[in-house]
């Protein structure tokens, strides 16, 4: 080995000293960004996954074995994800959890399909907790993939069903990020509004580059000029925060129907500009829970702080289903567990849920909530804040949000 600068060699060796070792039992790999711009979202997911696993282990684990989480940083890169998948398989992992980025999810599904076909003894099951591209439970469905978040079409179904009853929705403006997810949201919105409220006019359909726009004032001006009373947007992160800020600055009198107003970083940034103006479609509504179903949330807040909100309930559902299916199949073999998982029905804190066997999409209750100022009535605040919360507008039972599927799943014999 070339003797590089002693500084560099020392640096590497020292850093290794701070590493921790992993142990045996049932390994579940978490492949998401843990560094870089999306680190906060990836970290949050990891906390929720670790917490869910801890709850299971505290009750004795699964089949006498403990669940061990193996975090792998994919740096939000599809290529890095493939490499980390390989690393996970080498470490004897059979269960992968991922959710940040449909592009990564798509790559993982392809890679896992190929891997399971070429090396059946190293088969892997993919638990998708947040990648919402509808294709994964339609044309690109896979026996090895299970989705625990409602896909973007299902969420639009819920939003538009709510809008159907709202008389004040007359002119709708669509503003989305210019990439596949944004395109999907715009398409679904147009389709479903045309079916449910043919009287509503779409007065604008705008796309803007992802995470590049700092000043949304020109877009808000255009929305105002169109006379829209409702804006539907799939924007997330800074794109959503800046849009709502600009809307408040210009005194835009329109309601925002969003997908991601509740995720880490957004509620504090929305602040007063979002109150009573921003709505969100989500499966997570802690304020609707009866007092005896909140133990999980309270335990989570005890561990991670009063302002932390375990809004990624899909993680909890995934681990619960995994544990139950392993017990039912009396095995940790991926193929057997996957067979036990599909078609499973159970009750979680919010109501009846089902892992639909045809396409491996979880069907669960969905809510439309409005961002509001916290008052004594709300038991839980929005993530990262003490002053704001989400108030329920409507609840849809699982079957009302379910959509038909084009999935023709190939099952192993």
């Amino acid at each position, binding site marked *: 080995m070339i003797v590089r600068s002693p500084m560099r060699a020392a640096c590497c060796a020292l850093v290794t000293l701070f590493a921790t070792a992993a142990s045996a039992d049932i390994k579940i790999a978490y492949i998401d960004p843990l560094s870089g711009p999306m680190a906060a979202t990836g970290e949050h997911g990891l906390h929720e996954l670790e917490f869910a696993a801890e709850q299971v282990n505290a009750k004795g684990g699964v089949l006498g074995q403990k669940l061990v989480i193996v975090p792998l940083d994919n740096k939000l890169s599809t290529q890095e994800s493939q490499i980390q998948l390989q690393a996970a398989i080498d470490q004897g992992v059979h269960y992968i959890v991922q959710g940040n980025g449909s592009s990564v999810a798509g790559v993982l599904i392809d890679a896992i399909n190929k891997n399971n076909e070429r090396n059946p003894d190293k088969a892997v099951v993919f638990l998708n907790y947040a990648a919402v591209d509808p294709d994964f439970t339609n044309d690109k469905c896979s026996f090895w993939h299970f989705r625990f978040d409602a896909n973007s079409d299902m969420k639009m179904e819920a939003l538009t069903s709510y809008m159907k009853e709202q008389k004040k929705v007359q002119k709708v403006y669509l503003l989305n990020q210019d990439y596949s997810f944004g395109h999907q949201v715009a398409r679904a919105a147009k389709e479903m509004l045309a079916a449910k409220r043919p009287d509503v006019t779409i007065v604008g359909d705008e796309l*803007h580059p992802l*995470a590049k726009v700092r*000043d949304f004032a*020109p877009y808000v001006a255009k929305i105002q000029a169109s006379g829209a009373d409702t804006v539907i947007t799939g924007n997330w992160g800074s794109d959503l925060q800046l849009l709502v800020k600009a809307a408040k600055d210009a*005194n835009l009198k329109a309601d925002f129907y969003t997908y991601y107003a509740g995720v880490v970083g957004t509620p504090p*940034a929305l602040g007063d500009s979002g109150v009573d103006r921003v709505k969100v479609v989500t499966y997570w509504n802690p304020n609707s829970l009866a007092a005896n179903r909140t133990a999980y949330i309270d335990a989570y807040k005890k561990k991670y702080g009063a302002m932390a909100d375990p809004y990624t309930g899909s993680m909890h559902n995934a681990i619960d289903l995994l544990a139950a299916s392993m017990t039912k199949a009396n095995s940790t073999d991926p193929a057997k567990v996957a067979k036990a998982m599909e078609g499973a029905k159970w009750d979680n804190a919010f109501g009846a849920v089902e892992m639909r066997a045809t396409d491996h999409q979880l069907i669960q209750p969905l809510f439309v909530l409005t961002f509001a100022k916290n008052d004594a009535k709300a038991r839980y605040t929005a993530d*990262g804040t003490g002053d704001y919360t989400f108030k329920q507008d409507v609840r849809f039972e699982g079957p009302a949000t379910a959509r038909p599927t084009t999935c023709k799943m190939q099952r192993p014999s």
Partner: protein
Amino acid sequence: MELFVTSLLNGVTYGLLLFMLSSGLTLIFSMMGVLNFAHASFYMLGAYFGYAISTKVGFYPALVLAPLAVGSIGALVERYGLRRAHATGHVSELLFTFGLAFVIAEAVRLVWGSTPVPYKVPVSLDGPLFTLYDATFPTYKAFMMLVSVGMLVALYAGLTRTRVGLVIRAALTRPDMAEALGHDVPRVFMLVFGGGAALAGLAGVIGGNAFVTDPGMAESLGTIVFVVVVVGGLGSLTGAFVASLFIGIVQTFAVAVDYSWHGMSISRVAPVIPYFIMVAMLIVRPRGLMGTRET
């Protein structure tokens, strides 16, 4: 008609914000021929320092203290980093500022985390200033415009009317002669770099609460600033002013316009138009609109 007027107003506001950001960079580039990649990072530092100081002492002290802090960091960077890199050539300087931008972004992430910080507009400046047609124009944006124009006036006056400005301009065109006449040119360089950084820091204090303050803010604004400096003219302050307004207005109107060209709507590509302009300018007239030197 109302869309036209609102867009014009928005365009001018955005353009003035760009000028606030790029004035410091033009100064540094005119002086030292160094295209400072870390300029937007100083903007980000200004925003974070503004946030930290304003939560402890208030927004108005932060307006003064934060730029001073960023300026001192800039001066230190020049003295101990850039000067060393300068010895090994232009490429080293560019690479140094490139690496510096990266390290500053990571350091910010280290200290304040990856999520945006709740840096808020001060209550005294919050709220609408006037109503135009149906839309309100926020007071804070008017404040931003005021500061930006003030910056231009102060810089221009400072450079042309004061003795210090005279020395700076001499060091720009004839550094060896200025040194031969007894002026401490390296110290002038250090002060100018620090001054440029302080200007960026001031822009950060003001811009950080109007827009989101998060570790990614340097990346998203960094390249636009280069476009302004390049289009305006490498070395000209008035050029940077004209270019900022031009780009601000063009970008805003591109969004407002409902025109499609071959199926691609102009508003979709609006945020990318500045790059087209920059590439076109570099090909056709590398000196920029009002530039005094090329590279």
